């Protein structure tokens, strides 16, 4: 996909990114199970080790840095399950990534209907 140029603010989850992100995404996929979510909540660092996250991925996770997670190969579909643990919805996550408050982000969404 990279050969076609890049779309600003968009990180394509292509093959090489999926290779890079595999441990992170596998960890987040496990969050489909309530017991895995509990295990993560109990000891985050141990859970990172269990899935062999890279240092970059651990850092992004520790800092709740969504853009950092994406740059480390994270897929939004699996990261969403992590956001669920934090009690964040897609508007909250949108705000986090765009530097807006959730309310600002929601207003931004509404504004795009005024075309």
């Amino acid at each position, binding site marked *: 996909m990279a050969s076609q140029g890049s779309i*600003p603010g968009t990180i394509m989850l292509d093959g090489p990114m999926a290779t890079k992100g595999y441990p992170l995404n596998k960890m987040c996929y496990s969050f489909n199970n309530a017991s895995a979510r509990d295990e993560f909540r109990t000891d985050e660092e141990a859970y990172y080790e269990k899935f062999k996250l890279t240092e970059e991925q651990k850092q992004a996770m520790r800092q709740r840095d969504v853009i950092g997670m994406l740059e480390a190969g994270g897929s939004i579909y699996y990261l969403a399950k992590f956001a669920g643990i934090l009690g964040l919805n*897609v508007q909250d996550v949108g705000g986090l990534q765009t530097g807006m408050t959730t309310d600002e*982000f929601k207003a931004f*969404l509404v504004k795009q209907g005024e*075309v």
Partner: protein
Amino acid sequence: MANLLGGIATSHIPAIGVAMDKGLEETPYWKDFFDAYPPVRDWLYTQEPDIAIIFYNDHGLEFFHDRKPTFAIGASELYENADEGWGIAEIPPVTGETELSWHIVNHLIEHDFDITVCQEMKVDHGLTVPLTLMWPGHKYGHIKVIPVAINCERHPMPKPSRCYAFGKAIGDAVRSFSGDQKVVVMGTGGLSHQLDGQRAGYINKPFDLYCMDKIVNEPELLTQFTNYELVEKAGAQGVELNMWLAMRGALENEGSLKELHRSYHLPISNTGAGLQLLATNNAR
């Protein structure tokens, strides 16, 4: 032969399921969105389809990157929903069927579609939210569902033209089935939205309206896009248009279509949410 009655395209975002669980349909945020659905429900009630073939994408419930199919089709008597990790309520099992499923599988392999066949699979909100929208109160037990999952989560994804051809082959398979079942096809997801990156929140209303306009009689204008172009024009998750194209492909050899419903609401969650109903001449 089995008869295709028509196709329905609808949003499938989880927030809709949550809103229905909480009974928020009449609140200001949701009212206009939900008010669009009764005409489509009435049509289904009148037409009494036996089987629904549902093109959707799995968002990481059944499939992970360990084994990610491009196209997957179910051939099971029953499909379970399950915990997706972020709080949407699980719904009762979905009724499946296997005879038409295997007939479609045979037809697809004969025509060089390299599907993954699932005799057991969990279905996520991409399938269950539309079912719940069409038959509220989980009253979908009577309809037999054939789930068809299309990869929209990791590039490379099947091209829009391939998704359309895939749908077309499934439509041909339905027509060549010896039963007399009445079948509807559904395409779920979209329209424009982007959940990830600094561009999160991107919606393209003019493009969405263009797609809903062209899909009726000029779908070839949409199948010429690359997935890259879809991401550019409709956002990272705008590629879910591919499910609409597969649905439309299934109707391709049905002759003229009647557009019985079209509506669009923005924003619903982070998306431009479309609803469209295209009937064939087999419909009453």
